[in-house]
């Protein structure tokens, strides 16, 4: 018996788009998302391409479409355990981790006030800590808190439970496994920033004022740890001299052997964040090739028409920190002038690339990966890759890729 439901693994921009496109044609769709929220990496950005919109701009309408469409069902804090069967008839086992917060939650935040344990904040890329009872960001969807019960003691849990005026804390919540029957599977597992700990020459993530481009997004975001003020981590001062290090671990056979497509433009986008706050800051972008994929040439022209911007051809291969001031010093050879120099900055931003999220994880049998770890679609096997799980993309192309994946998923289940 053929099944025309579709499973979408990953609730980021590609997954949401694929799910909605399929659901609005009448297919039952399940989204499985491992985070407590939908929206993926886009939700973490300050502004996104191509029009430099804030994430709420594109995501809100998607969330509305999800809310209004009974054909879309989504699971957060969920992971695929196993896939069996064949196209048209897959059985998928899904693990649902407990949220400990039920649908009565109004996101009033009382539980967060009552909590005391501080834990690593993945959403803010470690820039700040968060409480064990938390909402990742203001615009979270579903708008519901999450409780890291395993991180708290019994007393703290009782205080958290008692603090909730709506009786939304459910300490008896437990891990569940469910089974879904679907006809095809869209893999929209997305990307993660390349681990800077591997970039030893660039400080290996140990230098306070050397941040990643995704940390820069959070610093610039009004909902971020500094309420949108770009301040350097060591002393919360506004940086006046900032370097962008392009291809930090990208196009490098010792790290990610490919170009992540959007990092060059992302650094120029982040230049605009700096300009809004400090028109006089000196910004230097060190690059191998300043790449403007697709139609970004015009964007580049606008962005680089800036008296206080220097574009230097030469890859930064060494960063050290001044012990007293915490200022990072980069060493680079300007390949045009042939002069090697050490330059001191207030803040250095590493433009790290996109690594497939599934890197280092098990993939379902039948799913094949290319040499860089991205998923290769196999329509005959019932798997369709979408978004940055397939190749590095910007948000616009991700949406296109999601739509395309929806069509392929439908073609897989229809007419069997």
């Amino acid at each position: 018996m053929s099944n025309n439901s579709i499973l979408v693994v990953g609730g980021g921009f590609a997954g949401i788009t694929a799910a909605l496109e399929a659901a609005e044609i009448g297919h039952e769709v399940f989204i499985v998302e491992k985070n407590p929220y939908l929206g993926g990496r886009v939700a973490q950005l300050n502004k996104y391409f191509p029009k430099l919109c804030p994430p709420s701009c594109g995501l809100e309408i998607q969330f509305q479409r999800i809310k209004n469409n009974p054909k879309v069902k989504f699971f957060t804090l969920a992971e695929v355990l196993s896939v069996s069967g064949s196209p048209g008839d897959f059985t998928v086992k899904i693990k649902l981790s407990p949220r400990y917060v039920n649908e009565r939650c109004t996101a009033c935040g009382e539980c967060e006030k009552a909590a005391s344990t501080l834990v690593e904040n993945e959403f803010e890329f470690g820039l700040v800590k968060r409480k064990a009872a938390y909402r990742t960001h203001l615009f979270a969807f579903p708008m519901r808190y999450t409780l890291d019960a395993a991180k708290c003691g019994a007393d703290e849990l009782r205080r958290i439970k008692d603090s909730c005026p709506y009786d939304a804390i459910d300490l008896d919540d437990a891990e569940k496994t469910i089974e879904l029957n679907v006809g095809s599977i869209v893999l929209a597992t997305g990307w993660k920033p390349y681990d800077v700990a591997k970039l030893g020459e660039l400080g290996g993530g140990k230098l306070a004022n050397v941040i990643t481009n995704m940390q820069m997004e959070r610093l610039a975001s009004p909902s971020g740890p500094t309420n949108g003020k770009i301040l350097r981590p060591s002393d919360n001062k506004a940086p006046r001299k900032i370097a962008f290090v392009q291809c930090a671990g990208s196009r490098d056979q010792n790290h990610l052997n490919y170009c992540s497509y959007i990092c060059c433009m992302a650094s120029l986008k982040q230049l605009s964040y700096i300009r809004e706050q400090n028109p006089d800051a000196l910004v230097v972008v060190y690059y191998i090739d300043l790449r403007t994929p697709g139609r970004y040439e015009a964007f580049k022209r606008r962005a680089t028409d800036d008296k206080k911007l220097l574009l230097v051809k030469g890859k930064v291969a060494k960063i050290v920190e001044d012990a007293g001031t915490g200022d990072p010093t980069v060493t680079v050879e300007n390949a045009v002038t042939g002069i090697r120099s050490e330059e001191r900055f207030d803040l250095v931003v590493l433009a790290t690339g996109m690594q497939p999220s599934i890197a280092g994880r098990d993939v379902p049998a039948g799913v094949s990966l290319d040499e860089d770890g991205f998923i290769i679609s196999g329509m005959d096997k019932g798997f369709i890759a979408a978004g940055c799980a397939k190749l590095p993309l910007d948000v616009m192309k991700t949406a296109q890729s999601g739509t395309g994946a929806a069509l392929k998923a439908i073609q897989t289940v229809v007419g069997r």
Partner: protein
Amino acid sequence: MSNTVRVQPDLNFVKELQAVGGESLKKCYQCATCSVVCPLSPDDSPYPRKEMVWAQWGLKDRLLNDIDIWLCHNCGTCSDLCPRGAKPGDLLAALRNMAYRNLAKPSAIGKWMSSSKFIPLLMAIPAAIYLIIWFIRAAVLKDAFPLNADGNVVYGLLFPGDYTIDPVFSLAFLFMVCAFVSGTRALLKSFEGMPKTYILGRKEQPGLIRCLVETIKYEVARHTQFQDCGQEPQDVKRFQGHLLVFYAFVALLVVTGVVASGHWFGGWFLGGVLGLEDPFTKLLSWAGHTPMPLWSPVKLLANAGAAALIIGLVFLTKRRLNLDKAKQGSSWYDWYLLTVIWAVALTGVGSEFLRLVNAKYLAYPTYFLHLIAVFMLLAYLPWSKLGHLVYRTVALAYARKIGRIPMQPKG
């Protein structure tokens, strides 16, 4: 651009370079990681990024006249961190190999030394000389494996030093020196176009001799550049190994010098020609007399040198065998030199040991092989990787003169 240069690429040269060990140079995309991570490269026009683009463009003149290939001591850090696997370290090594091949005259030997297929020819030259001598002496003595009156192996019986060793090796030495003179001239001529660095506070350019003295004091005697070249444990082992091998050769050179001057100056000239019998003449001619007793200080120095040579060789060979081939290759020049020095060391120690145990059928062939190995090391030296002994020293002195490297190393 106001100062556009018309590039006249020499495509054959690019191919030639790729053939001698720079095969991956086309992968370079000019990110300049290499020149940043190089521990020795100067800040002004650092190497090896510019050499990579010159090589891709086939700018033969620039590369052949480039002094920087001698500033590089080949730790391989650039190639380790190269994002494309373009192996800039191998390119510089390949350029040095080209210099060994082309600098000294006659260039035919440069060609023979550039490929393993000519090795039988190179071996045949010393082998033929000493095989003929062996035949003649065997005929004269009516014994191809002669023993002396006490029944001991004495190499001088088969290959009398005064007539068959010293003249042959003196000629080989002279040949080598002449070749180096021509090679060094060519090298210095190639540097003429190098830009001079204006150094504040330096009134006039120092003389080449003074620069040479400083180079010998620092880079040669103390291996200062080598010590700074790479910080990994295998780089430290390479530095130690090279230092041991270098001082082993110095020790063996001293031994040879003492024997030669003792024998020829003390024994032959003072004792023989002038007929002196003072204690100094006696001591000198004793020191130059071979075979020496094992307790002779000269023999002790020789044995210590041989031991240092073998330990150093073990360090260097081990490192080369363990090189990650994806990052750093080894060329024919590298293996030729290591093998010949191994052959010199092993046949030398073997000859001494087999002579002491009086195993004549093994001792004489081993000594014969030792003569071949020493000849191959000495006579072909300017065209081998060991040519760096002279070329690198001269280049570093010249680099001091023009301000490319400081007169005294930092720290």
